[in-house]
């Protein structure tokens, strides 16, 4: 084990496919927690999940098409009608509100969770195909990641006790 703890040889892999502010949380929460519980963790970042490896994160979210999202507002919980979500500035407002809510409730930022993942030696693989597809640059991404494709992931998955697709 990374820190010399006694062998818990369990392992987990996560395919990370979504890169909005809200959807960035589940993979990083589970990845860092599993690592803290001595699992060997691999995260495979593909499609819209890949930008989560960029050094500079500017995560946003939208209430559009999300009827389950009810934000605390003026003492109540309000869902946003799609026609309102589509208005200019509403996404920006929802993003700011969500970030404030995270802070108020003591929820870590994605930057902090990602740093914890790096610290706890979570293996992070960037999907090479997505990198080419969206013309992203490896140089814009954090250190300590690897490049790989579907076969790399499948190899990891066959050896993992838990495989998640998020």
């Amino acid at each position, binding site marked *: 084990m990374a820190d010399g703890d006694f062998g818990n040889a369990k392992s987990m892999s996560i395919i990370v496919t979504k890169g909005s502010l809200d959807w960035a949380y589940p993979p990083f929460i589970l990845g860092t927690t599993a690592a803290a519980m001595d699992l060997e963790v691999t995260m495979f970042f593909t499609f819209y999940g890949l930008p989560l490896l960029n050094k500079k994160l500017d995560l946003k979210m939208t209430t559009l098409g999300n009827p389950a999202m009810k934000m605390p507002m003026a003492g109540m919980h309000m869902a946003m009608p799609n026609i309102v979500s589509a208005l200019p500035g509403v996404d920006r407002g929802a993003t700011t509100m969500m970030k404030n809510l995270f802070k108020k*409730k003591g929820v870590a930022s994605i930057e902090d969770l990602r740093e914890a993942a790096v610290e706890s030696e979570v293996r992070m693989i960037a999907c090479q195909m997505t990198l080419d597809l969206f013309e992203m640059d490896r140089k814009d991404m954090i250190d300590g990641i690897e490049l790989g494709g579907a076969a790399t992931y499948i190899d990891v998955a066959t050896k993992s006790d838990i495989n998640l697709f998020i």
Partner: protein
Amino acid sequence: MADQTLNAEGLNCPLPIIKAKKALKGMEAGKVLEVRSTDPGSIADFAAFCTQTGNELLSSNTEGNIYLFEIKKS
């Protein structure tokens, strides 16, 4: 009596666990870490954390809004 205390008050999931792991990492085997949390989820989470990592959960108590755990490093 704990050898080290971690104040995780005000922090939400998964930070109490991650910070506890970090604290335990720097401690010798047999030493006891006390964690203070305000996250009600930590009662179940520290039990699960200890089951998985093999560290011993010596105690799990609630004092008002504070959840107190004593974890002995394996």
